[in-house]
């Protein structure tokens, strides 16, 4: 009886697989002699907003570049990694099967660390738009970042607060089971100590306890905090803002780039985010022409205001494009050769993009650009 069950399972599985094998092979809208660029990010699951933003941002850049009709044409393929490191490696291998020559991704830090060591071993050029951990680039000469590293964000936030609000009593609520949040908190606390800032309360939560923050908020309120530093992602931040309002606790809220996206969260009352400050390299309301074009194109295609992740990915594709152009690469080169050419280019070039002017890269892979603080007013970002 049991054995027959198993046999049936195996048969059904085999049938499914053979069905799938049938649909294979038709993917890839690849033009001949186009560079194949792979994107990895969480297109489904909890972090899908980030992955899809990266996918869409990169798609816009690729379409623009192809419309220029120059020698360099790009083909783009995105794969889902549900923000898990091992799935991300699988996605990377799938993209390699497709013939990927340059990797723009992965989107999240944990995935980026896992894929970076694969890319380093394979000699595949990797430029992560939004993987912010310092471990991604450490010891890997062909891996680069577009966004700030976590240590830089913590330091920059502390510097900004000490310059503009030196007397504030700071409360921190952070998520101690993700590296992003813990990393920023660590460097923030270290820099705050150096600058003589006063941290009156610290509260932690994990992915499993991210639905109720009354304990942490009560502690912050009792400690007399007037500035709430939230180095966390926007879903949790939205719950915190909501609960703080219910409690009648109204500190200045200061976030980092994970806070970006809160205004487009479905079902979120944007009036709660009024007055929230955040450090982000990208503001969709910036006046310059490049940003305006990108934002209007993005709105037209996908019906929402692009966040920083989309802009990072857009920049990443342009950085690769500039690099390929300057190095004189052709689409029939192997990914190893392209990697060597791009590594040489990126460390010497200066790039002006949506997420910062005069970006430069050191050989370690970190980007250097100026952070920007914005305030949310009337549902949009404005410069303070």
């Amino acid at each position, binding site marked *: 009886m049991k054995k027959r069950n198993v046999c049936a399972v195996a048969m059904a*599985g085999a049938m499914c697989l053979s069905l799938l094998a049938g649909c294979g092979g038709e993917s890839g809208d690849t033009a001949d002699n186009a560079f194949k660029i792979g994107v990895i990010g969480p297109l489904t699951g909890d972090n899908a907003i980030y992955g899809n933003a990266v996918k869409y941002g990169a798609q816009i850049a690729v379409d623009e570049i192809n419309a220029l009709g120059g020698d360099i044409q790009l083909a783009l393929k995105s794969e889902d990694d549900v923000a898990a490191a091992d799935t991300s490696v699988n996605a990377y291998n799938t993209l390699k099967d497709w013939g990927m020559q340059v990797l723009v991704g992965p989107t999240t830090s944990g995935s980026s660390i896992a894929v970076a060591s694969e890319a380093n071993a394979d000699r595949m050029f990797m430029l992560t738009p939004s993987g912010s951990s310092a471990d991604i680039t450490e010891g890997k000469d062909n891996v680069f970042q577009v966004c700030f590293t976590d240590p830089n964000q913590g330091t920059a936030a502390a510097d900004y607060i000490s310059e503009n609000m030196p007397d504030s009593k700071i409360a921190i609520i952070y998520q101690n089971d993700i590296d992003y949040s813990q990393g920023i908190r660590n460097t923030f606390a270290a820099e705050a100590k150096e600058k003589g800032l006063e941290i009156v309360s610290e509260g932690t939560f994990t992915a499993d306890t991210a639905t109720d923050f009354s304990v942490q908020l009560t502690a912050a309120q009792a400690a007399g905090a007037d500035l709430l530093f939230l180095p966390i992602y926007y879903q949790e931040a939205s719950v915190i803002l909501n609960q703080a309002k219910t409690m009648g606790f109204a500190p200045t809220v200061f976030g980092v780039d994970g806070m970006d996206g809160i205004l487009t969260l479905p079902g979120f009352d944007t009036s709660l985010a009024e007055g929230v400050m955040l450090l982000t390299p990208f503001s969709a309301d910036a006046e310059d022409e490049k940003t305006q074009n990108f934002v209007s194109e993005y709105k037209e295609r996908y019906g929402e205001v692009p966040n920083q992740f989309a802009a990072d990915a857009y920049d990443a594709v342009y950085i690769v494009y500039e690099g390929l152009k300057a190095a004189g690469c052709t689409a029939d080169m192997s990914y190893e050769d392209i990697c060597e050419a791009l590594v040489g280019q990126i460390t010497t070039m200066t790039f002006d993009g949506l997420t910062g002017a005069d970006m430069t890269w050191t050989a370690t892979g970190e980007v250097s650009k100026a952070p920007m603080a914005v305030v949310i007013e009337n549902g949009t970002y404005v410069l303070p």
Partner: protein
Amino acid sequence: MKNLLKKKTTRTDFLTYLGVIVAFVIMFALQQADMLKNSTQGMLVPVCCFVVMAVSLNLTVGILGELSLGHAGFMSVGAFSGIIAAMSLEQSIPSDLARLIIAIVVGAICAAIAGFIVGVPVLRLQGDYLAIVTLAFGEIIKELINCLIVGYDENGLHVMFNLSGKLSVENLNMTENGVAIIKGAQGAVGVDKLATFPMGFVLVMLCLVIVLNLVRSRTGRAILSIRDNRIAAESVGINVTKYRLMAFVISAAMAGSAGALFGLNYSTLSSTRFDFNTSILVLVYVVLGGLGNIWGSIIAAVVLYVLPEALREFNDYRMLVYAIVLILVMLATNNDQFKAMLGRILPKRRKGAAANG
């Protein structure tokens, strides 16, 4: 030998070994000839890990008859202890293979100890307590490893629990040559990728030999009798707690070894990878493969691990399609018409199908 193979169970066991060996030889040959797709190649080691996980959970759920909902917890213990062993021995043992074997052994031992601690109080009880306690165990392990900070330098291992959330690797006070192995929430970073497909195969074979021989032995018959009727088993003088504990600890040890292999296959690993979902995923392998059916677990683990990757063609809908496939498989395996159809395809089965139908 001929007599031996006449026995049906023995024949099934040998066919299971043979199937695994043939599958390995084919895949290994293709890998050496560089004829495998990158995606297939990347899945070889994790597939081996999850096959071991499924076989080990089948020992608890199918053969011992106890529900374990925290098997990923044992995998986690094995993975992180294995990583610590492999990375801290980097200087003293240069051979990758030796370190991999040591890591797997250490992972198995640590998970066995965890299994023993969980099992001693719980397996004395009758009822579903093991399910509840293992569920809690899985969550506790996840949180504990989240707080764990481990580093290594020439003075030895530095271990610290970051319970307040305010400590970081700097607080370990390591010397300049120190290497951070586990960085709290971030998990293990910068792990050497030591895991190899042949090692995965060896591990699968080892687990098969252990489980299949255990089941067919005197001990195994005692375990099966406890599953089928505890009171009857007690009445013939079987020490129920001893045999249940034995099966559970062996199962935990195998999960730990699978974890060590899995951990050493990626350059980073965080404790949230081994959450409740992973435990349930392995349970799905076991249930769909058939409780108590070892080769069924193997096939189910391979097919269900590869399936989400094979479904990448469906883009955003792949997990939806995956769920539909699971439901269809469940329905199909309980459908008399489907069984009858299967009976027509495989004449040998006709007799059984007729008897059932």
